[in-house]
């Protein structure tokens, strides 16, 4: 299970998978992560010793509390809770994993949204004894809102229900109904015991009825982001590279990270919002020149004509579906700040590499994420609320919907006075079409 050693090439060719974990207090999330790290031999002896010492001191227990491996801050260890998103890393011979471990308390919805925003897979933990609770629905709603491509429902603490197939199937049936309402795609169920390690890394010998994969095997084999190179090509311009040196006197390159699709030398492109057309004459990556580049490569593109391009512009392929260029944007937002959002409020907007200002035109409705009902009589959007709003921006944005493209379809709202990031927005064209669950 450890990283291949002599076979250096094997390691150099690994893929990256990002997943988030969400669960309520006490359903064993930190223990599960501790188990994944421990059983995949990603925990080192000095870390384990530190955890053993801390387990003894905090709980007087001889048993190693794997949760302590992930609770990093002093207050977290003292209170036995997770306050902030923690990132963890481990690797197997097949993949390198980045875990966004998000706290499950109601007041930390914003952390869950943060952790989910970059995830390829969401693991939702359910305590086998309690079944699906309000918080499980909340976590699932967020997975749906952020459109995480794969959901793994890990039914934990199976050891405490004698690995009952009936208990597992009942939870599965109930969850499948929710998944349908939430339009969740690719949902997989696994019965596990994080504490004892059953079906996490090693198959359980206690539940003979379960014929599926272990959690780790699933994470190693789930197909991820297969489609992103087939999206319409997008390059948000980040930085203009102008060396002004003797060797590169006329060099003018547009640096950015490809955020969808593929660019090739020779492609006809359009620069937005100006709609200027040109052709790619070179794609540079460091000191190398490439024939083509794809998502999510950071490159520098040079164009045939000496066109006016600046940070915040978007380069797209002329032959492909174009993004919307408009100052009127319809959004689903998750509010992240204790100061509520109001109709008429003004904010700084950061969208891809563009920065502008916006006014909140309308709060259409808030979503009660426990009942999935729309609230139309209360338009004050408070921390952790989800709402559908319309904004008008100072400069037009060049956008796709969030379901089409996670980069050109997302933005954040920034408070004009405190500069805090106060809202996370997902752009919607049409609520009916956009596979959002509202």
């Amino acid at each position: 299970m450890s990283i291949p050693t002599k076979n250096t090439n094997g390691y150099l060719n690994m893929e990256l998978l990002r997943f988030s974990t969400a669960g309520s207090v006490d359903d064993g999330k930190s223990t599960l992560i501790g188990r994944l790290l421990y059983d995949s031999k990603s925990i080192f002896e000095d870390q384990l010793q530190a955890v053993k010492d801390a387990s003894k001191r905090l709980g007087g227990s001889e048993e190693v509390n794997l949760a302590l491996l992930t609770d990093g801050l002093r207050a977290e260890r003292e209170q036995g809770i997770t306050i902030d998103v923690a990132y963890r890393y481990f690797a197997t011979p097949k993949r390198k994993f980045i875990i966004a471990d998000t706290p499950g308390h109601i007041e930390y919805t914003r952390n869950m949204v943060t952790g989910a925003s970059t995830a390829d897979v969401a693991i939702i933990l359910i305590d086998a004894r309690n079944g699906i609770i309000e918080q499980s629905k909340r976590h699932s709603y967020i997975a749906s809102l952020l459109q995480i491509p794969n959901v793994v429902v890990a039914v934990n603490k199976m050891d405490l229900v004698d690995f009952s197939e009936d208990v597992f199937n009942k939870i599965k049936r109930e969850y499948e109904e929710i998944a349908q309402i939430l339009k969740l795609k690719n949902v997989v169920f696994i019965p596990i015991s994080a504490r004892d390690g059953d079906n996490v890394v090693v198959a359980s010998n206690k539940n003979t009825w379960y014929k599926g994969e272990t959690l780790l095997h699933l994470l190693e084999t789930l197909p991820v982001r297969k489609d992103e190179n087939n999206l319409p090509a997008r390059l948000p311009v980040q930085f203009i590279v102008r060396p002004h040196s003797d060797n590169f006197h006329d060099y003018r390159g547009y640096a950015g990270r490809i955020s969808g699709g593929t660019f090739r030398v020779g492609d006809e492109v359009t620069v937005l919002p100006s709609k200027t057309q040109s052709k790619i004459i070179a794609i540079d990556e460091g000191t190398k020149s490439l024939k083509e580049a794809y998502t999510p490569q950071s490159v520098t593109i040079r164009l045939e004509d000496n066109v006016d391009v600046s940070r915040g512009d978007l380069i797209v392929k002329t032959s492909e579906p174009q993004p919307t260029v408009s100052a009127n944007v319809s959004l689903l937002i998750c509010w992240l700040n204790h100061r509520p959002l109001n109709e008429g409020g003004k904010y700084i907007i950061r969208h891809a590499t563009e920065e502008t200002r916006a006014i909140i035109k309308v709060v259409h409705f808030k979503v009660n994420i426990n009942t999935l009902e729309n609230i139309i009589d209360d338009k004050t959007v408070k921390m952790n609320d989800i709402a559908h709003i319309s904004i008008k921006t100072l400069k037009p944005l060049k956008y796709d919907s969030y379901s089409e493209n996670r980069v050109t379809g997302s933005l954040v709202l920034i408070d004009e006075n405190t500069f805090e990031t106060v809202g996370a927005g997902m752009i919607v064209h049409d609520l009916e079409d956009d596979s959002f669950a509202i």
Partner: protein
Amino acid sequence: MYLFLILYPNYGINITPEWYCEGFWIAVILQHINPNNQNMIINRLTHLKELESESIYILREVAAQFEKPVLLFSGGKDSIVMAYLTYKAFYPAAIPFPFVHIDTGHNFEETITYRDDLVKLLGAQLVVGLVEESIAQGRAVEEKGFSASRNKLQTVTLLDTLEKYKFDAALGGARRDEEKARAKERFFSHRDEFGQWDPKNQRPELWNIFNGKKQIGEHFRVFPISNWTEMDVWQYILQENIPLPSLYYTHEREVFERDGIIYAALPEMPRRESETIEVKRVRCRTIGDITCTGLTLSSANTLEDIIDEIASSRITERGGRSDDKRSEAAMEDRKKAGYF
């Protein structure tokens, strides 16, 4: 060509079982169905390419969002990788910000030589902040005793240097896998006007959108290689063929042992009488200054050797760092005060 591969799967190339899996065959089949359909691409970046791309994206964001950024250079492998990533991010233009080295005065000689050579090679500018100057000015007080270290004192010099030159973003090579308090760090980490970190009040960081807006007097710490692990760093150094200070490779050295950690026997490191000098074959797994860098018994001579050694190691790289062992929350406390 494909038929050839099917008939002679092991011919010439070492085809691992992964080659038979889904992705490869989908690619083959798609090419056959419609060889002209150039839009169907299922290339995936390797994890190292993806990490590199993420880091370069962040470096460019810093150059675009801040007026006076700076790269904190320690001479360790992480900041060396940062220096090379920065070079790549802006090539063929010059690196658009200087490197800052906070020099405790207790550095290995090799670190300083390497630093000066690298700066020349990459065409970067170097600013040095001296801890000794902070001590002379009475801004920092030297610790006493055998475990005295200037590690904590660096924070004073660092904050003073940032203020002196009005740097508004300091790029660091810290990784989230290094230490549990660092696991909660943002890429763009906001610092108040006292340079302090408030872990409970961090800005949410969503998707790849980074908010570097700040009030006058505040600054940011930015960590472009947050998502890299120790192994990723070494593999990247191998892949990119990056030269390293000789301290990272095995060498014979006079050393002594304290609390299970091997230290270099150099004048900067006072010894108790009971601590006897021995000559051993060692190397550095991390490089800090002499007083806090534990050495590893090792015969690793090449990058491949080092990677093998790390893959089979059962101790974290910071296991040899005495600065982390002062208390369970040693790193959290130092970070709150404005440490790297």
